[in-house]
């Protein structure tokens, strides 16, 4: 039986892992390579790195981080954040990443999904999507870009379907409403997207307790759940989360 995945997300700025704390900006919390190794040893199923480096000139720092992470961990990891061309995708993949996550750049230029999928395969192309409740959008949710700050014309469900059609092999769905609350994932949109696209859906935003993961992986129909604050700040370790999931009959990889 395919296991439900626990994925840890690391935001990286200028080569350091950082974490946004609501209304307080970002605080550095460690070296991404050392943190990746720690989570690998703890049995995390996958990692995601988001490059939130502001300046384009410092992009090479991220490639170096990817290269060093690849030497230390032997599980898949994806890289996202500002990737706008197939050349940038290639650089990240050749540094050792398994997948590319496209978010705002895919909204601005949807062709990039198709180009990436044709060159590297659908399994390499992840659509990252920030969505928030909006009654005026057909599915009840609207897509946002630029870290959730800018509303788009796109309906969340329509965009998910289009991206899959264009070649996205997986969707990471981040709920802006739930993000940072630690009150649990947004189950409604997760279930809606997951039941309506044929590719795996990773839930993101709102995780605070292991029960939240169980909820989104069962009721929310997600294939994987992404966590950040929960593990970064030491509230829970990956094994604690997984043991809880296993006790609640969620299929999970325990033999790490």
């Amino acid at each position, binding site marked *: *039986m*395919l*296991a*439900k*995945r626990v994925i840890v997300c690391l935001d990286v700025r200028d080569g350091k892992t950082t974490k946004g704390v609501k209304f307080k900006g970002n605080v550095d919390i460690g070296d991404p390579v050392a943190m990746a190794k720690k989570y*690998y040893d703890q*049995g995390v*199923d996958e990692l995601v790195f988001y490059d939130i480096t502001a300046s384009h000139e410092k992009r090479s720092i991220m490639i170096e981080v990817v290269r060093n992470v*690849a*030497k230390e961990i*032997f*599980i*898949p990891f994806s890289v996202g954040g500002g990737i706008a061309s197939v050349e940038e995708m290639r650089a990240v*993949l*050749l*540094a*050792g990443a*398994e997948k590319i996550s496209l978010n705002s750049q895919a909204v601005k230029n949807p062709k990039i999904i198709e180009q990436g999928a044709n060159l*590297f*395969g*659908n*399994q*390499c192309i992840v659509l990252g999507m920030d969505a928030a409740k909006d009654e005026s959008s057909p599915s009840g949710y609207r897509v946002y870009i630029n870290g959730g700050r800018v509303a788009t014309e796109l309906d969340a469900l329509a965009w998910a379907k289009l991206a899959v059609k264009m070649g996205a*092999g*997986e969707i990471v769905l981040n709920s802006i409403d739930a993000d940072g609350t630690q009150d649990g994932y947004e189950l409604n949109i997760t279930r809606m997207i997951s*039941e309506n696209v*044929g*590719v*795996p859906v990773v839930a993101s935003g709102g995780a605070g307790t292991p029960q939240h993961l169980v909820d989104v992986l069962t009721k929310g129909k997600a*294939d*994987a759940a992404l966590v950040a604050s929960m593990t970064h700040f030491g509230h829970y370790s990956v094994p604690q989360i997984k043991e809880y999931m296993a006790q609640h009959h969620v299929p999970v*990889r325990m*033999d*790490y």
Partner: protein
Amino acid sequence: MAKDKVAVVDYKAGNLKSVETALDYLGADFLVTHDPDALRGAARVIFPGVGEARASMEVLQASGLGQAIVDFFQSGRPLMGICLGTQIIFEHSEERDTACLGLVKGKVRRFPESGGLKIPQIGWNQVVHSDSHPVFKGIPENSNFYFVHSYYPQADIQEQVMARTEYGITFSSAVARDNLFASQFHPEKSGRWGLKLLENFLGWNP
């Protein structure tokens, strides 16, 4: 020279970086090559790959690498397939109706779209093996390995099925015959058990 080395076949099918980093980690003496003669002369060969069957077969045929893999298999030295490499050693793939190398009898089919099955299968799934093959030595039955694929191999000869995995249907997740071992999963991305399996292959003398 290639004769003491592990050769990793580079046929422009996806990213070989993770295979390279895993082999580096294990201390293997290897080269990544698209030269058919370097392949024929290698001590062992790893045939990886991610991508589309038809396009990959065309590259293999045009470059002479396909024949070199068949020749290498006939030399009796250890050959390992991974993911698309494994699918291509079968006789046929449903992916754009592609004739493959035919080292293992059987077919590669697409996962059924029905029943809400997500395609591709992405993630960790249990590999049910009987522990009988040296490449699985020391790896517990039902260990989890990492899979990414939309098509699955099904071997005709049951004795050549070394492991089975269930995803909508039950498929041959590892096959072996003579000096060949091939897995649908990615050992290079499968954590400790994946590294153990690669280490076993590097020490395997069929």
